[in-house]
């Protein structure tokens, strides 16, 4: 078993997702079965193979390095669940 109670808690914490005990149990099972299944990639010899991160065969143009102003803070804040004097508002961080 690659994923146990400790690992799932660690991943959940990294992902900032709170899991209850029942969910943790379910995800331990799911993730282990998925990881067992993807294990078959180890059969493939990938020595000297470059990892592929961008599949595009076209030449990707660079944009000109000039500043532009496409958003206003008002628009950016429009959907915020909580805002205060032109800023996003979150629960107090400093005690």
């Amino acid at each position: 078993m690659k994923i146990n109670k400790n690992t799932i808690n660690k991943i959940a914490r990294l992902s900032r997702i709170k899991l209850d005990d029942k969910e943790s149990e379910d995800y331990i099972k799911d993730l282990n079965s998925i990881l067992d299944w993807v294990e078959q990639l180890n059969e493939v010899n990938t020595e000297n193979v470059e990892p592929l991160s961008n599949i595009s065969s076209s030449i990707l143009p660079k944009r000109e390095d000039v500043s532009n102003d496409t958003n206003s803070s008002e628009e950016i804040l429009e959907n915020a669940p909580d805002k205060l004097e032109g800023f996003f508002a979150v629960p107090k961080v400093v005690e």
Partner: protein
Amino acid sequence: MSKSSLKQTLKDLDTKKISIRELNQDYLKRIKENKNLNVFIHFSEENVLKQIDNLENDNSAKKLKGIPIAIKDLFCTKSMPTTAASKILENFNPTYESFVTQKLLDEGSIFVGKTNLDEFAMGSATNTSFFGNTINPLSKENEPLAPGGSSGGSAAAVAADLCLGATGTDTGGSIRQPASFCGVVGIKPTYGLCSRWGIAAFASSLDQAGIFSHNVEDASILLQSIAGFDQRDSTSAKVDIPNYFENLDDDLNGKTVGIPKEYSIDGTPMEISQIWEDAIKVLEKKGVKIKNISLPHTKYALPTYYIIAPAEASSNLARYDGVKYGFRSDEIDSLDEMYENTRAQGFGREVKRRILIGTYVLSAGYYDAYYLKAQKVRKLIADDFNRAFNECDFIVTPTAPSAAFPLNEKQNDPIKMYLNDVFTVPASLAGLPGISIPFGKDKNNLPLGIQILGKHFDEQQVFNAAVSLERSYE
């Protein structure tokens, strides 16, 4: 030919046989009659009527003027909310328009509504949506079928004739598989052909916008409308977009079709193998040379995809934190509590599963073993296709390993669900254009689909082969 076609409707509008208002009122009526299918997450009659008013006062010539189009609710639209079928974006009203929808607006099309999908496009049955299942319009009474996914709402909207075309997105098969399930045409173009600007991101190295339509000609018209370079998407390609429709040519004489042996998979229903053979025979009669090809790494495409896609998703979905937009939990004693509760309550089960697996394969100590390994296998899969296309002009395969299945049938076993994408994922990993067209029926009279794949940016060849097969089948 289906009951409606975009090409014919454009003619009818042009010759004033029908007005924009009459046309759209017809569609509004059908949309209201088909509410039980749960095709739309957002539909507002008032909004559609407003668009009609605006167009009636607009004298400029526009290519898609008055044409009713449905938009997958993953594209940001200023005039309608955008949810990605997730509770976490339940009340999100974009302040900007996606590249693709802006192009359609510029051409004068009318947006009839935002269609249902799997939450953040993660699924193959449109059953992970926060807003409930979409029902396949081809279902028999009391036997609801899945429309496929993730763009199930858009496929169903076209199948039920609630629009003349719809947008979709395809990351591992999310256009082609639902097109096959609903008996419509669906094209995913080459990675980079349509800008991803304004589309809620799932797996950025794979996500690509595309089109659903009643037939291949309509798809060729609509794809041209949404394609093009956009500097706001760093992977958007600067290529010339041909007039696919004008250039359609169903004469395939002298072309070579590749038939990959690895796509004959144990357990594939006889009916699927049969339509595949039928399609090959049709092509042979048209003077197409049949070439057996090998794509040796095909069997590794799914596990590769289910590492890369969740890894990118875990990163992309980090932005939903309850701060900038969307849902925020009420249980917010501290900042961390706020993040953790917001994401726990805002995301559904499948999305959380993929975020967790993606976080794991990217985490310290596992990155090389999983993510880097998958990227290397991805290279081998792409190389397989490159080699194959030295020997053939296009590739023909089945689209999906089954016809539409009953709603919820495959929900409990994630890997079984992932197998739906077995024929579509390899081309996604290689960034190739692919279309699914209806071709044949199964024993329950449900449609099956044939997939045609082409070289990078060779959508024209894909359309030509598709229109040729379509015309021979009618």
